[in-house]
C-alpha cells in the first residue's frame, strides 16, 4: 500500500493532530457534553484510518502495531471490568465510589471519567484492528496485492 497523492498527504499532515486532539477531548468530557467513550474512540480510529490511507500501512503500523492494537483492546475492557469490580469497596457492584468534587469540572464525575477513557481506548484499538484485519491482513486482499506488485 503506497498511500495517496501529495495534496492528500499535506492535508493529512496538517489535520491529523487536530483530529486526534478532538477525539481525546470528546472522550474526556463525555460526562458533561454529548459524546463519551464510544464517539471519541471512533474519531481516534478514523484518524488512524486516514493516516493509513494517506501514507500507507507502514506509517500507521509503526505508530500502533497489530500486537499493541489487540493489547490495548483487552486492556481497555479489563480496566472497565476492574472499575466495576472495585465498586465493591464502596459497598455495591459498579457503584461510583470516587468522590465527586466541583460540578461541571473535569473530575466531577468519579468513575465515569475512567470508564470513558477505557472505552475510548478499547473502541479505538478494536476498530483499527478490525480495519487492519479486513483490509491489510485479510487473505482476500493478498491476491490483489500480489497482482499489484506484479505490474
Amino acid at each position, binding site marked *: 500500500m503506497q498511500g495517496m497523492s501529495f495534496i492528500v498527504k499535506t492535508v493529512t499532515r496538517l489535520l491529523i493532530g487536530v483530529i486526534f486532539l478532538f477525539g481525546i477531548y470528546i472522550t474526556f468530557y463525555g460526562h458533561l457534553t454529548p459524546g463519551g467513550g464510544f464517539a471519541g474512540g471512533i474519531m481516534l480510529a478514523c484518524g488512524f484510518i486516514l493516516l493509513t490511507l494517506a501514507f500507507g500501512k507502514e506509517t500507521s503500523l509503526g505508530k500502533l502495531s497489530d500486537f499493541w492494537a489487540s*493489547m490495548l483492546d483487552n486492556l481497555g475492557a*479489563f480496566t472497565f*471490568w476492574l472499575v466495576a469490580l472495585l465498586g465493591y469497596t464502596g*459497598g*455495591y*457492584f459498579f*457503584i461510583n465510589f470516587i468522590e465527586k468534587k466541583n460540578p461541571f469540572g473535569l473530575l466531577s464525575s468519579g468513575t465515569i471519567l475512567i470508564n470513558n477513557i477505557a472505552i475510548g481506548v478499547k473502541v479505538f484499538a478494536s476498530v483499527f484492528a478490525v480495519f487492519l484485519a479486513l483490509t491489510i491482513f485479510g487473505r482476500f486482499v493478498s491476491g490483489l496485492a500480489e497482482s499489484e506488485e506484479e505490474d
Partner: protein
Amino acid sequence: MENWLPLFVAVPLGMAFINLLLSKFIKRISPFLVLAAVVFQLWLALRFLGHAAFYYSMGNWTPPLGITLVWDPLSQLLALIVSVISLAVTLFAIPYMQQYTAQSKFYSLYLLMIAGMNGVVLTGDMFNLFVFLEIASIASYALVAFGVEAEELEASFKYLVLGGVSSTIILLAIALLYAATGTLNMADMAAALRHGISHGLLFFIFALFLMGFGLKSAMVPFHAWLPDAHPSAPAPISAMLSGLIIKALGIYALIRVFFIILGIVPIVKTIMMTLGGLSMVIGVFLAVGQWDFKRLLAYHSISQMGYVMVGIGLATPLGILGGLFHLLNHAVFKSLLFLCSGAFEYTTGTRQLKQLGGLIRKMPWTGGSCSIAALSISGVPPFNGFWSKLIIIVALFQAKFYFLGAVTVFVSFMTLISFIKVQKYSLFGNLPERLQGIKEAPVFMVAGVVILAVMCVGLGVLYPFYGPAILESARNLILEPGQYLQFAMP
C-alpha cells in the same frame, strides 16, 4: 452474600478478557482459566440454591431508576441448568479443541457466551435483557463459524442474518413497550400494564415478541437456521447452542415476557400450542430421514422444543410443570448427544451414520452414555425423558386436548424409531475395517460425558428430592405473576 449476585455475569466476562491478555504471554493457560470460571459459577449457583427471592440493584440505584438483577425461582432453575451444562461441556472441550488453531479466542468467545446467558437469565430490566441477548447471540454467531470451512461460514451467515432480524424485531417490541409504559424495569412495567393498555398495541407486541423469541427458540415457521447452524459448529458449541442458547435466550425470555410482564391471554396460548404442535411434527418427520448424525440431532431439537412450547402454552399447573421439566431434561440429554457425536467425530473422523458402526465395543464409556441419552430422548423409563413427556401428555389429556395428546404420543413413537436407527448404525452392528484401531476418547471428554449421563438417570429417579424446590417453585411463580411484583420492587 447477596452482594455476590453480579459475579454470575462479572466473572465469565472478566475471565474472557484476562484470558486474551495472558494468552499472549503464557500459551496454554486458557483451559485453566475457563475451568476456574465455570467451577466458580457452579459453586455460586449451588450457594444461592433455595435462597428466598430477592433483587439486587446495580450501583445502589433504586429501581425503577436503576437496573436490577433478580434471583427468583425461575432464574434459579435456568442458572442451575447453565452452570451444570457449561461445566460438562467445558470438560469436554478441553481435549476436543486441540484440533483447532486460535484456541484462546475460542475460549474467550465461549466465556462471553456464558456471561451473556447468565445476564439474560438474571436480569430484571428489559433493555438489559436485550443487551445480554445480543452479547450471547453475537458470540454464538462467531463460534458457529469457528473452524472456517466453507459450510460452516455459510451456516453462520444464515444464522447471523436470521438472528439479526429477530433481534431487531425484539428491539422494536421493547421500544413499543417503553412507549406504552414509560419505564424499562420489568416489575414496574408489569404493574403499569395491569392498569390497562390498548388491545391493538398489546396484540402487536405479543406478535413481535413471538416472532423474535420464537426464532431464537427455533419454533416452526422460524426454524430454518437451526439445521444448518447446529451441525456446522464444533461439537462443544453445538451442545451449548442446542442445550442452552435456545432455552435461555428463547423459551426463558418468552416465559418471562409473556407470563410475568405482559400477562398471558387465551389467543396467545392457542398460538403457542399450535406452533408447538407443528414444531413437534415437522421436526421429527424431517429428522427420521437424516443420515448425518448432528443434523438429525438438530432436527430433534426443533421437535423437543415443540414439546416444551406445548407444555407451557397449556398454562395449567401440570402443563407448565411438564414444560419446565422437559426443558431441564432436554438440556441434559441433548447436550449429551451432541457431545457423544463430537467424541465419535474425534475418534473416527466422520459423522455420517452409514460409515459408523459397532462403536460401543471400542468406546464403552462414550457409547454407553450415548445409549442412555438416546433412550432418554425417546422416553423410555426410568430415564428422565420419560417422566417429563408423561407429565405433558397427561396434562394435555386432562385439559381435553385429545388430538394434540395423540399427536404427542405419535411424535414420541417416531423419536423412538429414529433413535433406534441411530443406535443400530452407530453403536451396535458391525465395526467397519477402517475403524478397527480406534480407542476410547480422552479422559476429560469421557468425564464431561459421564457427568451428563449420570444426571440423565438421576434426574429421572430422584425427582422427589429436587422437584418441589426447583421446578414446582418456578411453576408457582409463573402461575401467579403478582408475586414477582412483591420481591422485585422496593
